[in-house]
C-alpha cells in the first residue's frame, strides 16, 4: 500500500541513479537518520551505548570495508584482524606522538596508513586467486599481529605490551579516555559510519565500483574492456583497508580504550567480520550494517537470556553462540547466499505488489 513506485517517474539520469529511488525508502532513510542523531542520544543508557551501539557502528565500518573487498571485488581476505590492528596501533602512535591532533584527523590518518599496508599485502592478489589469496591474507594477519607484538616501539615500550588510549577531545568534547561519555563516543562513531557508508555507496556505484565488480564477475572480460586488474584490485585493497583501519582505530580508541594485539585482533576477528558480511549480504552496503547488527546483538541477547534469565554458566552460553553462528552461516549460504540484504530486497519486491500480487 505505502510501498509504491508507480507514478514516481524519473525524468533525469541523475534522479534515476540516486541511492533510494523510491520515495518511501527515501523518507524512511531520513527518519532513521533523525532518530539516530536527534532522538537516540537522549535516550540510550551508557550500557546500551557501550555494549551495543558503539560496537555495532565500529563493526559496521569494518564489515563495509571487507564487503568492498570480498563482496564487490571478489577477493577473499582473512586478514581483517591484522589490518584492524594496524589501524589501532597507528591511532595509538598518532595520539601519543601528536597530542594536539584532533581525533577526526587521527582516525582518518590511521585509515590512510592501514590503506597503505593493505595495498602492500594486496600486491600478491595479481598473481594469486581464490583460496590461495585467502591463505596469503592469513600471512598478513599473523605477520602483522606478530610484528606489533614484538616491536616495542609500536606500544611505546610499555611493560604490559598493552596500548591505552589517552584522553583526546574535539571541539572541547572529550571523545576518548576514561572520562569520555559513551554517548559522545556513539555520536562520533555514527558520524564516521554514515560518512563512510556514503563514500562506499558513491565508490561502488561509479566507475571504480564497476571495475571491481567486473573483476569479480569475469576478470578476463574486465581486462579486455580496459580495466587494469592490478589497479582495480589494489584500489579495492586500499579502500577496504582504509575502512578496516578506521574501524580498528575506533575499536581501540573509543570502544576498548586499551588493547593487547594478540587478544583484541586475533584471527577470530577476521572471521567475525567475514560472517557479518556473509550474513548481511555480499556486495551490499545496507547488508554490512545488518550483518554487524546481527553479530553484535546476538551474543548480547543470548547472554541476557541464557545467563541472565536461565542462569546457565557463561561458558555454556558461549559454546551455544558458536553453534548458532556456525549453523546460521551454513543456513544462509544454503538458503540465501546474498544474505539478509537480499531477503529484504525480495520482501520489497513483494511489498511493491501487495496487496494485489497478480
Amino acid at each position, binding site marked *: 500500500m505505502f510501498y509504491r513506485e508507480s507514478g514516481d517517474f524519473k525524468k533525469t539520469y541523475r534522479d534515476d541513479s540516486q541511492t533510494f529511488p523510491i520515495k518511501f525508502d527515501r523518507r524512511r532513510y531520513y527518519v532513521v537518520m533523525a532518530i539516530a542523531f536527534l532522538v537516540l542520544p537522549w535516550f540510550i543508557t551508557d550500557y546500551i551505548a557501550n555494549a551495543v551501539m558503539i560496537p555495532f557502528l565500529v563493526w559496521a565500518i569494518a564489515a563495509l570495508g571487507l564487503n568492498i573487498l570480498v563482496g564487490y571485488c*571478489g577477493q*577473499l581476505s582473512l586478514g581483517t584482524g591484522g589490518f584492524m590492528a594496524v589501524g589501532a596501533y597507528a591511532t595509538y602512535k598518532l595520539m601519543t606522538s601528536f597530542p594536539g591532533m584532533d581525533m577526526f584527523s587521527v582516525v582518518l590518518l590511521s585509515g590512510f596508513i592501514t590503506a597503505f599496508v593493505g595495498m602492500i599485502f594486496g600486491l*600478491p592478489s595479481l*598473481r*594469486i*586467486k*581464490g*583460496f*590461495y589469496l*585467502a*591463505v*596469503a591474507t*592469513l*600471512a598478513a*594477519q*599473523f*605477520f602483522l*599481529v*606478530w610484528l606489533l607484538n*614484538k*616491536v616495542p616501539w609500536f606500544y611505546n615500550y610499555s611493560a604490559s605490551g598493552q596500548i591505552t588510549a589517552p584522553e583526546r577531545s574535539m571541539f572541547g568534547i572529550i571523545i576518548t579516555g576514561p572520562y569520555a561519555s559513551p554517548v559522545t563516543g556513539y555520536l562520533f562513531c555514527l558520524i564516521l559510519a554514515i560518512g563512510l557508508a556514503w563514500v562506499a555507496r558513491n565508490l561502488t556505484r561509479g566507475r571504480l565500483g564497476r571495475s571491481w565488480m567486473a573483476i569479480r564477475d569475469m576478470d*578476463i572480460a574486465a581486462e579486455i574492456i580496459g580495466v587494469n586488474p592490478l589497479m582495480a584490485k589494489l584500489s579495492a585493497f586500499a579502500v577496504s583497508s582504509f575502512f578496516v583501519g578506521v574501524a580498528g582505530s575506533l575499536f581501540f580508541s573509543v570502544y576498548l580504550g586499551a588493547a593487547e594485539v594478540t587478544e583484541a585482533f586475533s*584471527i577470530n576477528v577476521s*572471521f567475525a567480520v*567475514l*560472517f557479518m558480511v*556473509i550474513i548481511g549480504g555480499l556486495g551490499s552496503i545496507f547488508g554490512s550494517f545488518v550483518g554487524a547488527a546481527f553479530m553484535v546483538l546476538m551474543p548480547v541477547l543470548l547472554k541476557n537470556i541464557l545467563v541472565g534469565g*536461565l542462569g*546457565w*554458566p557463561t*561458558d*555454556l552460553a558461549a*559454546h*551455544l*553462540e*558458536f*553453534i*548458532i*553462528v*556456525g*549453523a*546460521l*552461516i*551454513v543456513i544462509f*549460504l*544454503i538458503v540465501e*547466499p546474498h544474505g539478509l540484504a537480499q531477503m529484504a530486497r525480495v520482501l520489497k519486491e513483494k511489498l511493491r505488489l501487495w496487496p494485489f500480487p497478480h
Partner: protein
Amino acid sequence: MSADFLYTLEVILNGLMAGVMYSLVALGFVLIFKASGIFNYAQGVMALFAAMTLVGIQTGQIPFAHLINAIFGTEMHHFGWQVPAFLAIILTVGVMVLFAMIVEKYILHHLVNQEPIILFMATIGLAYFMEGFGDIMWGSEIKTMDVGIPSGGSLWLEEYTLGWAAEGERYWGMYIDKLDMVATLVAVILVVSLTLFSQYTKTGRALRAVADDHQAALSVGISLRAIWVIVWSIAGFVALVAGIMWGAKSGVQFSLSLIALKALPVLMLGGFTSIPGAIIGGLIIGVGEKLFEFAIGPMIGGATENWFAYVLALMFLVFRPQGLFGEKIIERV
C-alpha cells in the same frame, strides 16, 4: 662432527617430524578437495572433535553433561566406566562416519554446484558449529589423550648420538620425541594405504572419477552422494589419526583446531590435489619454520613460527601460483 652441526641436524629432524604432523592434517584437506572440490576449513576442528570424542568415550564421559546439568540442575559427569582404547577408536570412527553422513545430507547436498568460495565459507561455518557442538558435548577443559602411544625423548637415540660430537664439545645427544617417530610411521602407513586404496579399488576409481568431473561420473552410474559420504568418512578417519597424534603431543584443547590454519600453507606449497604434495609441503614447512626460528628467530624476537609458514607460502606462490606439484594453469578465453 661439531656440536653446531649436530644441533642443526636435530632441528632439521624435529622440523621433519613436525612437518609430518602438518601433513597429517593437510592430507584430510587434499582428500576432500580432490573428491568434491571443497576446501574444507573444518578439517582442523574435525581433528579436535574426533580427539574429544575419543577421550570422552574412553573415559566414560556423559555426552552433553554440562547442558543437561544446566537445564535440569543435575550433577552428573561420568558413566563410571572406562572403555579400552581400541574399542573407543572404533566407536569414534563410527561417530565420524555418522558425522560424514550428516554433513552430506544437510550441507553438501544443498550446496551442489555452488561457487567454491561459497563452499569454503560454508565449511568455516561448519567449523564454528562443530567447535561449539564439541564443547557442549564433551566440555571445553583440556583433556589428556592416552591411547598407549609411547612419548618422551628416546633415551636410546640420545645415548647413541652422544659419541658423535667431537671430543671436548658440550653435547648431550639428540632429543627426538618417540611420539613423533610413531606419528611418522603412522603417516607413512596412512599415505601408502590411501594411495593403494585410490589406485586399486573400485571405490577408489570412482573417487578419482568424481574428482575429475562430477557430471561425467554421474552419467556412468557413480553415486555422488555415496562417494561424498565415503570421502568425508575417510577424511574423518584421517582427522582422528591427526587428532590422536596432536592430542597425545599437546593435550586435547582448542588450539588443536588451529593446526588447520597451519595446514593451509602446507597445501599452498604442495598443491590442493596432490597427496605426495601434502607430505612434502608439510615437511618443507616443518623444517623451514624450525630452522628459521633456530637461526634467525632469536635476532628478531622469536615466535616466528606464528607466521613463517604463511609468509613462506606467500613468497612461494607469487613465483609459482600453482604450487609445487600443481599443473601449470593456462588461462583460456
